[in-house]
Structures are given as structure tokens and as C-alpha cells.
């Protein structure tokens, strides 16, 4: 009796343990029994890969591809723990521009794509995009660029009309060649429509202005923290904060639930919009707002916001096959098709200058020629240097602007506190 019971208990424990261990190990791309190579690709939001994957599988019968999609924040946290644990990461992982500096520090956990011939591809991308994906003076290729954000400004035509402002996108763009002019338009708007907000959040205005400068929080030369003495940071902060002080912003957390509600209620008139934000605006504002939003050029010339890279973690069993797939997915031909399907802007001149792309209009946004607007913005952008600790410092200034918007602090107090916190974070 004792034997059987104890034996059963042990075997149950053993089975339970084995099960959990297997569960813990699950996810590492094993191979199917039928001799096919199984690749997994981990992305967030919509990379537009579903149809492309089907096509790739058809032309490569020995490859089976699994796409895993999670929310953006979770995606990067999960990736970090998977790299730390040495297992569980997909064979190809997407990394967003804002996060890649952090992962660049741990490049040992990734395959150097240069070993597989990635350097030959360099000329495909805009130079700044290529550089963001590399490290070690360009000798270590961490990721191949997918899309980019570019920058435009979206505005609501009906609210502009009610405020006596022009509604034509060329004329609207001409209203604000600079951010100072943008603030003047805000004042005109608020005088006419005091109950509506001119812009959703000061945080995004700030980010857009700062991303148009060559250096932000960190020095290009030696990656040291200069956020406390870089005038550009203070200028951008003061400009954006003045909108908050005058209560011209909705004081909304960008892309939050409240932001969606405010979109639906048409309670703000403008928002900074990188190419990928069009889909978010459309989803938030809903079908009834079709044709009410439009896209104009952003103040201060072009800019970039967002965009991602495909990298291959070292733990993969199939670095060569993973590289081949990443190379194919990021090639201009595929980027063009993704743009048409999802609106994610190509990061390769051959793709974003292609007539097929530049001729693209977006019906929802009053048939705005988005291909042309974002393409132009991409051409004129000055890439901003992102330091290794950029992602640690950025939220500190976002929080500070939020404190100004909600009236908790004056601009100068908020800025001083932010600089102090940023110094600590960059230590």
C-alpha cells in the first residue's frame, strides 16, 4: 500500500514537474516532426505580415512560420526576460525604435546579421534608419528596419471651420511653418472655440519638437547626458508646456482609453500623427467621423516618430533561415505592399519614393495624399540622436508636462523636477 501510494505521489510530482518544465521551455522554436523548419516571429500591433507569411511558406515549402502578436509594452518586457532566461524568444523579434537603444547594450544576445551578409543590404535604407539598427561603428548589425513613423499633423476640418480657420490641407500646413506659429493658431482657435481643446496632449507636441533636433537628452559624441544643459530640450519643453498652461490641451495620456473617448467626442482639433497613428485615429474616432479628419504637414519641417526593426536572438536554432525571412520581409517590394495594406510607412527610399506609394491616398482622412505627405516628411527629416538611456529619461519629461497640464505645477517647477529626475535616471 505504502509503495503504491508513495510511488503514485512521486510519479504525480514527477509528471507535474515535467509538465511545468516543458511549459517553461515551450516557445523555443523546435522543429516539426515532418522535417520542416519551424520559425516564429514575434511582433506587436499590426506589422502586416499575415499575407506575406502565407506567400513565403508557399515559396519555401520546407519552412513553417508562426506569428506571435502581443501589445507593444508587453512585447519588449517579455523579450527582455526571454533574453535573460536564454529561451522562449521567437526566432525573429520586432524591436521598436524607442527600445532598440536598450537592447543594443545587450547585443551579445543577438545574432550579428553582418555575419550573414546583411551589410550588402545597407543601401536599401535611409542612412539614419540603417544606423539606428547597428552598433559598434556599424560592424554589428542588430536589426533590419521595417517601417518608420515620419511625421505629419492631423486636424479636424469641422472644428477648424467653426473656428474660422482654413480647412484646405495646403493652407493649414502653411499656417504653421514653425511651432511658434502653431501656438498662434492655437490662440486663434481658443478665442473662437473656448470649449474645445486645440490639441490632445502637450506630451506629443513636445516629442515631435524634440525629435526634430539633432541631439536631445544625450550627446551624439559620447552618449553623455546633456538634457540639463541642452537649450533645445528646454525650448521644446517650454513651447509644449505653454499650451498646457493655457489649458489648450486635453491633458490626455497619449493613445489611452481617455484619448479614444476624446477622439469619439471630437473634443480636440489637432494631433501629431506619424504614419502609424492614422489607424489609431480611425479606430478611435469611428466611422461617423469619416472625412472629418485630414492630414497636413507638421510645423518645423519633417520628423520621425517610431518605426521598428527585425532582429534575430542568438538563442534561435535557425539563424540563417531566420535572417533570410527577415531580409525578405524588410525588402522594398514587401514594404510597399505592407504600406498599401496597413499604412505602415516604408523606411526605404526605393519604397517610399515609389509612384505606387506616393500616389496612395487615405479615404478616411478626406482622401489625403498620405503617401506624398509622409514621403516628403521623411525626405526632409533630421534624424535625432537617441542615447542608450533615452527610454529611461523620456517618461520623466512626459510626466512633467502632464503635471503642468493638470495645473499641479508651473512650467519652470515641472522642468526643474524633471531635470533632477532625469539626472538620476541617466546615472
Amino acid at each position, binding site marked *: 500500500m505504502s509503495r503504491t*501510494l508513495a510511488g503514485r505521489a512521486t510519479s504525480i*510530482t514527477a509528471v507535474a514537474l515535467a509538465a511545468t518544465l516543458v511549459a517553461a521551455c515551450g516557445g523555443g522554436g523546435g522543429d516539426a516532426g515532418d522535417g520542416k523548419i519551424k520559425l516564429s516571429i514575434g511582433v506587436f500591433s499590426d506589422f502586416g505580415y499575415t499575407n506575406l507569411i502565407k506567400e513565403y511558406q508557399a515559396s519555401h515549402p520546407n519552412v513553417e512560420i508562426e506569428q506571435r502578436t502581443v501589445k507593444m509594452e508587453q512585447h519588449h*518586457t517579455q523579450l527582455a526576460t526571454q533574453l535573460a532566461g536564454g529561451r522562449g524568444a521567437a526566432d525573429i523579434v520586432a524591436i521598436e525604435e524607442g527600445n532598440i537603444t536598450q537592447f543594443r547594450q*545587450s547585443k551579445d544576445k543577438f545574432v550579428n546579421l553582418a555575419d550573414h551578409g546583411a551589410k550588402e543590404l545597407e543601401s536599401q535604407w535611409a542612412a539614419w534608419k540603417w544606423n539606428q539598427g547597428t552598433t559598434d561603428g556599424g560592424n554589428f548589425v542588430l536589426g533590419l528596419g521595417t517601417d518608420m513613423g515620419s511625421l505629419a499633423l492631423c486636424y479636424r476640418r469641422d472644428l477648424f471651420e467653426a473656428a474660422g480657420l482654413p480647412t484646405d490641407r495646403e493652407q493649414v500646413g502653411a499656417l504653421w511653418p514653425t511651432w511658434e506659429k502653431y501656438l498662434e493658431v492655437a490662440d486663434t482657435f481658443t478665442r473662437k472655440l473656448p470649449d474645445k481643446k486645440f490639441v490632445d496632449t502637450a506630451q506629443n507636441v513636445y516629442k515631435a519638437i524634440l525629435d526634430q533636433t539633432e541631439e536631445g537628452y544625450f550627446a551624439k559624441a559620447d552618449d553623455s547626458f546633456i538634457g540639463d544643459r541642452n537649450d533645445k530640450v528646454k525650448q521644446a519643453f517650454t513651447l509644449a508646456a505653454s499650451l498646457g498652461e493655457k489649458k489648450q490641451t486635453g491633458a490626455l495620456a497619449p493613445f*489611452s482609453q481617455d484619448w479614444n473617448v*476624446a477622439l469619439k467626442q471630437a473634443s480636440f482639433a489637432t494631433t501629431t500623427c506619424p504614419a502609424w497613428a492614422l489607424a489609431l485615429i480611425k479606430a478611435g474616432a469611428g466611422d461617423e467621423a469619416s472625412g472629418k479628419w485630414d492630414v497636413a504637414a507638421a510645423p518645423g519641417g519633417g520628423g520621425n516618430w517610431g518605426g521598428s526593426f527585425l532582429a534575430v536572438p542568438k538563442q534561435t536554432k535557425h539563424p540563417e533561415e531566420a535572417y533570410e525571412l527577415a531580409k525578405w520581409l524588410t525588402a522594398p517590394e514587401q514594404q510597399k505592399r505592407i504600406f498599401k495594406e496597413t499604412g505602415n510607412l516604408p523606411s526605404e527610399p526605393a519604397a517610399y519614393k515609389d509612384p505606387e506609394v506616393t500616389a496612395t491616398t487615405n479615404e478616411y482622412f478626406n482622401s489625403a495624399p498620405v503617401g506624398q505627405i509622409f514621403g516628403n516628411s521623411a525626405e526632409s527629416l533630421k534624424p535625432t540622436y537617441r542615447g542608450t538611456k533615452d527610454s*529611461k529619461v523620456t517618461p520623466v519629461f512626459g510626466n512633467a508636462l502632464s503635471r503642468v497640464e493638470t495645473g499641479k505645477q508651473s512650467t519652470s517647477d515641472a522642468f526643474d523636477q524633471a531635470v533632477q529626475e532625469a539626472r538620476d535616471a541617466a546615472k
Partner: protein
Amino acid sequence: MTVAPERATAGRGSGPVPPSAQRLSWRDKLGRLDAKYTPYVIIAPFFVVFGIFGLYPLLYTAWVSLHEWQLIDGDQGFTGLANYTELLSDKNFWNALGNTVSLFLLSTIPQLFAALGLAALLDRGLRGRAFWRAGVLLPNVISVAAVALVFAQLFGRDFGIVNALLGFVGIDPVDWRAQTWASHLAISSMVVWRWTGYNALIYLAAMQSVPKDMYESAMLDGASRWRVFWSITVPSIRPTILFTVIVSTIGGMQLFVEPQLFDPGGTATGTGGDDRQFQTLVMYLYEKGFRLFDAGYSSAIAWVLFLVILVVAVVNFTVARRIASKG
């Protein structure tokens, strides 16, 4: 697990033992061993699993906390107690501790009183008893993410229902996320909503074992329902109250999901409001470990949190027991 004791027996059996005893002992000894060790063998799986998934991570965390440890790249060198000394002078840590205690008090005290009241109501002969009893548990079985989503809507600043209701009685809209007290109230309401029914059911189970004749004699003596409740019901279920206090303490000090999902910045900033006004200890741990990749510091927070919970639980226990013995 079974092999070891048997081998030991075999070893002893070969020694100089009287032949008569040896003849009898095979079955006899086995039976005695059975009685002696089987209980341990049966509970062993729990301890094995606890050892692997509880104790080992606990000790490993302690080890990590003594190092500068980067989440992805791992060990960057032994630093002794440096993480702990830094923590003690870190004002964000004290802020998070204060928020945690405030949220704990704001949610646990009303929750347990409401649960007592609810249990007392359920203990009466209601129609459709099973329905009501299952009903109070409903908030607890709904996913916390869904609850947080709904409450975030209710407490919306511009279009939230709570502000609309306040508007009816002439109170200005409240920015529930911006102000410290307002955010604490909103988050506590979420916790109270989720856990009151659960605790009520536990109290109800205890109340039903209170002898009915005590109530009857009290009623005969002319005691009011209120008096009966406080003088008979509550003292009789004291051990259960003690249990819920301890469990709520442990849960309350580890509060994470509700405030995290209430934060519109989400885990992208992870600061619990623009001035850390509702960042709890676990949120701070998460920010340090998983957004800033400082696993060493994060582990130190985890250990301090563990010690804080231990202290609070012991204090709770002694206070609650003293009250009980006074009764």
C-alpha cells in the same frame, strides 16, 4: 523518496538482531514504516513544489539583490548591501511605501466592515439564498483586467459616470488620476468591489457555525439585533476575522494590477501617475526591474517588501489577538 527509508531498513536488518524479531518484523516493520512515513510522503509534493517555485526564487532573489544585476546581461558584480542602503535613502521608495499603506488602509478597513454587514444580511433567511450568495462572489471571479477597465471608464475625468453623478449634486468634476487622495479613493473602490463578497462568504461560513440557541436566549433577554450582532456574532467568528485580516494584509501590501491598469501611462511609464501619486511598492519594483532593467535593485525592493509584510502581519496578528482576548 521511498527508496531511502527502505534501504535504511535493509541495512539495519543485516545487523545483529535476534532471529525471532527478524522473522516477525518484515511485515510488521513495513506496516510501522507505512504509518510513520506515509503522511510525509503524501505532503512532500507540496514542499517539493514550494521549494522549487517558492523557496528557490526567494533565495535567488536575495542573491540577486546583493549584486548589481542587469535584467538581460545578468551579474555585473557583487555589491553587498549597496542596493539596500540606496533603497533606504530613495524617496521614491518611501513614497511607494506610503502609497501602499494608504491604499491598504483605505481598501481593507471598509472592505472588511462591509463584508461583515453583507454576511450578516446573507445569514438571515433570505429568499433565493443560493442566488444571493453566488452573486456576492461574482465581482471576484470577473477578471481583474476587466474590472480595472470598467472602473477606469467610471472614473474618467471628462466623460466618466462618477463625475457626471457628482455634477448632479453640484460638485465640480474631479481629476481622479491627477490628485493623490482622489486616485487612492478610486483604486480602493476597485479593491473593495472585488474582495468584499469573497470575505463576506468566509464570514458567512463562520457565522453559520455559531450556535443558534445563543441568539435565541439573547433575543429572549430583549437584546436588539445590533447588540446581538456585536456581542455574539462578531466575538464568535473572531478567528475567521483574524484570518481575513492577515490575508487582506498580504494582498493589500502587494497591490499591483488595479493601480497599474488605472494608470493611463500603463507600463510604458510605470510611475503610477505623473507624480508617482499612486505608485505602490510592487509597481516600483516592476518599474525598476522590467522597464529600467535593474534587476538587482528590484530584488532588493522585493525583499524589503517581504519583510514589511512580515512585520505588518505580525503586528496585525498581535493586535487582533489582544482585541480577541479582551472580548
